[in-house]
Structures are given as structure tokens and as C-alpha cells.
């Protein structure tokens, strides 16, 4: 099956630092086989479906072919072998920043919901008006939220701080956590689905 793989700059595995064979002249990279070799991964090669992407964001996104008996984990797939097919060029620093900013605004909105529920509509409105991570951070510091919204507001501030630094994977995590604070585990799942939708649509990925 076709799925995706995030690698560190230079085509390196994020955990193994394994140098993946890269595609050349329209031909896929060589097959990488999990051989029970601890340097790669215990028993399988891992990949992401579109729904899994938000958990694994790294420098480079690759479309990859996975072959053999495919197993599904919580947020990944595993296969005995895989090869890189093409680089998803749309995923670059600029795209990562846009995604991080989007996640920061989502966390902001969940914090605003928390403020409304705590009876502080004024703060909620003020917060929702802030569009950039810088402004969101400032707002969360200026607010004096009711106790029941305090943590969620702080979390949204952290999300915006991380977005400022371009740490999309953390901003995405924080957005899911703020969603959970407001709407429980199902809301976190929905937030992650929103994130995959954003990425899939922006990068025109096959689901």
C-alpha cells in the first residue's frame, strides 16, 4: 500500500538515524527490509496513513510504498519492507509554520470555550480576536481567567509559544490536549482528525 513517512533532514530515520535510500530519476528508492536488526527497528518498518501524520511531523515528508503483511498500530502502520517513492515537496518549513499557526488558533478557540463555560465571555471574545501566535501568547498572559479555565488558557498560551518557534508537532499535541480539556477524549480524536484533514488537503495527499 501507499502511505507516508516522515524523516529528518537528509533522509534519516527519526529514531534510528538510518539513512533511507532515496528515489533517483523517477525511480523509487531501494527496498528497506526490517531484518530484526536493532539499528533500524525491532521487527518492522513503520509508516503513517494520512490520519496518523500529526503524531510524527518531521523535516521531510515522503510518499512510500509498504509491502508484505501490513499491521496497524495505534497511529501507524508496520510492514516487513518499504521504499520511498517521492518527496512531498509541499511539506516545507513554510507549510509547517502555517500548520503550527492553525493549531495555535484551534487551541485558542478551545481555551475561549473554556472561558465561556467558566462565565467569562468577555475574555473569551478578547482571546478569539487574536490571530497570530504572538498575539495569542500576549492575550493568555494578560488574562486573569476563572480557576476552571486557568489551565486550558495556559495550555493555549504554550501552544502559541511553540507555534511561534515553528514546533508544529508540539502545537498539534497541545491543540488536541486543549480539545480534550473541553470535550473529553472524543474531542481530542476529532481534533486530530481535523489536523489530518488540514494536512491531507493542503498537501493533496491520497487518503
Amino acid at each position, binding site marked *: 500500500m501507499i502511505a507516508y513517512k516522515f524523516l529528518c533532514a537528509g533522509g534519516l530515520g527519526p529514531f534510528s538515524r538510518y539513512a533511507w535510500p532515496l528515489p533517483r530519476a523517477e525511480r523509487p528508492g531501494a527496498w528497506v527490509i526490517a531484518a530484526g536488526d536493532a539499528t533500524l527497528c525491532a521487527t518492522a518498518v513503520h509508516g503513517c496513513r494520512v490520519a496518523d501524520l500529526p503524531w510524527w511531523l518531521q523535516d521531510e515528508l515522503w510518499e512510500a510504498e509498504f509491502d508484505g503483511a501490513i499491521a496497524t498500530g*495505534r*497511529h501507524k502502520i508496520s510492514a516487513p519492507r518499504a521504499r520511498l517513492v517521492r518527496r512531498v515537496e509541499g511539506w516545507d518549513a513554510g507549510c509547517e509554520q502555517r500548520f503550527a499557526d492553525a493549531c495555535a488558533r484551534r487551541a485558542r478557540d478551545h481555551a475561549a470555550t473554556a472561558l465561556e463555560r467558566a462565565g467569562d465571555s468577555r475574555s473569551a471574545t478578547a482571546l478569539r480576536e487574536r490571530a497570530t501566535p504572538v498575539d495569542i501568547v500576549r492575550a493568555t498572559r494578560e488574562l486573569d481567567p476563572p480557576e476552571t479555565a486557568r489551565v486550558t488558557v495556559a495550555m493555549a498560551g504554550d501552544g502559541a509559544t511553540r507555534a511561534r518557534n515553528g514546533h508544529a508537532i508540539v502545537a498539534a499535541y497541545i491543540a488536541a490536549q486543549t480539545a480534550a*480539556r473541553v470535550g*473529553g477524549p472524543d474531542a481530542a480524536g476529532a481534533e486530530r482528525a481535523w489536523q489530518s484533514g488540514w494536512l491531507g488537503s493542503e498537501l493533496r495527499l491520497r487518503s
Partner: protein
Amino acid sequence: MSFDEIVCREFAELATDYLDGAMPEPTLELVEEHLAMCDWCRDYLHQIRTTAEVVADAEDDGPRFAPAEPVMQQLVGAFRRRRQGGPPG
């Protein structure tokens, strides 16, 4: 936590299990999800690994840790006698 995850305080106890490859798959998934997004835990892991590597060099200081000279002489004496005596039977 409101849903399944491993946080830093838990990972701090699991670093050696992770390095030994001695983690059951469900735990390993949670650990990898966490490490993907936590620089600090990746640093901690790297530091545990570095520590494990450098202790060998720190202890490798040769003659400083040999037994005292009189003891060494006794041991060498026993060795000499045994080798000169040859193997039994």
C-alpha cells in the same frame, strides 16, 4: 491524562528498557509517540546512553586499580608455582 499517553516522568523510568529493546509493543508505541514530540525526553535518552558509554572509559585507568604490590607479588608467585608444577595428573 484524558487518554492513553506516556508523559516525561514515566519515560524517565523507561529509558533503559527502551535502549535494551525490552519494551512490549503497546508501550513502545506510546513511547515513540512521546519521543517524536518531546525534545527534552530525547535529550534525556541521549544522556542516559552517553552515561552508559562513558563509564567504561572512566573506569579504564589501568594500574591505579590493581591490587597493592605485596598482594600482586603473592598472586604472581602462586601463578608461577602453578605453571611450573604443571597441570595435575
